[in-house]
């Protein structure tokens, strides 16, 4: 996408602009606070030690770029995705995202297990911000893509986890994303469905202005990304052209990483 001849006409402002971004968790906040501790004044623990999940992260992403985020478990990749999706707000620094963000961080997260697959398509689409009339038009296409057949009218508590993921991906594939953030979405279904979902994802990517992909897999990111951010323990170890950053990452970790499965943590 960097070879795009229309590069000169691009908006000079970055689509994603993170400057000195920091997000922390108070260690005690991760545990729930009891009323007894609250009444004795010890519940809030404002002086509790901070765990900086991200700190001092600065990068920019311009239109047409595909940004890969790489790092080991607990590096802060998912927290960065949450910040870019504006699910978490920065505690330090700032992040500016110019455009509408669509996140595929977890498939079928909004499903109601007592409702049928068809009813859950409407529900999940509403969470993703897809209008009802648009989803009605695409309903048959979504059902076909999910390969659920007559199961679509059964409550999804009878579905296997693979069936739920397939349905979740099929709804998400109806998105027309401006800025697409992907995490943990490529390991859906059997090998046949994975290939089909990969093709659909690539077509979504072509329609997006900017794509952010989180992965452990260097070959996968090398294949797709124009730029990369390398995170370790919440700090940025590298940012720049994908090849240079990923070569540094390989040199430091001693291997190219797993095949693309998309299963990520951190």
């Amino acid at each position, binding site marked *: 996408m960097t070879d795009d001849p229309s590069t000169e006409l691009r908006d000079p402002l970055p689509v994603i602009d993170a400057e000195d971004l920091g997000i922390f968790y108070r260690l005690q906040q991760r545990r*729930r*606070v009891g009323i007894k501790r609250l009444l004795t004044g010890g519940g809030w623990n404002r002086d509790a030690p901070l765990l900086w999940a991200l700190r001092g992260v600065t990068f920019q992403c311009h239109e047409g770029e595909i940004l890969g985020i790489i790092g080991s478990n607990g590096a802060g990749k998912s927290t960065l995705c949450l910040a870019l999706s504006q699910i978490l707000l920065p505690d330090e620094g700032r992040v500016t995202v110019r455009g509408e963000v669509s996140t595929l*961080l977890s498939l079928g997260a*909004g499903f*109601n297990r*007592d409702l049928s697959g068809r*009813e859950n398509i409407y529900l999940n689409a509403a*969470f993703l*911000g897809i209008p009802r009339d648009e989803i009605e038009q695409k309903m048959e296409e979504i059902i076909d893509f999910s390969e659920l057949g007559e199961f679509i009218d059964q409550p999804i508590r009878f579905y296997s986890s693979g069936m739920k993921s397939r349905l979740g991906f099929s709804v998400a594939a109806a998105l027309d994303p401006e800025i697409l953030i992907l995490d943990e979405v490529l390991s859906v279904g059997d090998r046949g469905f994975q290939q089909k979902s990969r093709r659909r994802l690539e077509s979504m990517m072509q329609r997006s202005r900017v794509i952010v992909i989180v992965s452990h897999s260097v070959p996968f990111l090398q294949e797709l990304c124009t730029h990369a951010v390398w995170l370790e323990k919440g700090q940025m170890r590298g940012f720049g052209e994908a090849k240079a950053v990923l070569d540094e990452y390989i040199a430091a970790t001693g291997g190219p990483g797993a095949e693309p499965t998309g299963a990520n943590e951190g």
Partner: protein
Amino acid sequence: MISNWSNLVARRDLLRELTLAELRAQSQETRLGWVFWLVDPLIMMLIYWGVVVGIFGRGEAYAPYPVFILCAMLPFKHFTSSLNGSAKILRGRDSLIKSIAFPTMALPLTIVLAGFSNFLFGMIVLLATAAAFQLPLTFLSMLQVLPLMALQLVLVTGLCLAVACFGALVRDLSGFLGHVTRMLFYVCPTLYGVDLVAQRFTKGALGQYAWSEWIPTLYMLNPFAILFTGYRDALFYGQIIELRSWALLGAESFVVLLLGYRLYQYFDRRVIKFL
């Protein structure tokens, strides 16, 4: 996507789908389906009627007691079910909240709206019971139910927004809420009328103290006391609700909504770190 009014309006599809999903999930897998929403208040009314009138031999001043009790029990059930649901909703949907950017305020609002839908079914039972007892109601007095329902929605929404935040922050809250709502049930004029409160405090043992005269006035500051009394004026006594009561209930409801909304906005993104 932060929780504010404009984002909620922009995502009104989500609010509608979530409420419908909640109602469908309640009814779809049951034998009775939506008919249970009619049967449920009927059973509750019969229980209280049996206990208060049948066993305790009270409630003769409030005959027909089934209509009297339903006027308070239905809005109270909307309040308690919404409050209990809201206290658990953010913790219960934590993986969703951390996966998709959406105004999370839609979650407690859905609980309130689904509860309100159940309340509307209860109102059918109430109106049918009032008709069965041939209460002398006028069209004007019955019309008052509409603004009362709107104010009830405003009041319960405000309380539930506040409780949703604290429920996510404080694990123990939902356990305490059961006791708080039970206490409120007896403190508010659900089983009895406000006239009993005035009688007890001005003519009983406390009647000798000058300050006891203030107790009924202070008691009527409770928005639920005004609400329940309002429903009874409209559907039990067939009277016009006093202007002072409208003003007080309206002011209290909107202040509670504003406070709940502001509180939710403050905790909106912060609370995610606690989940």
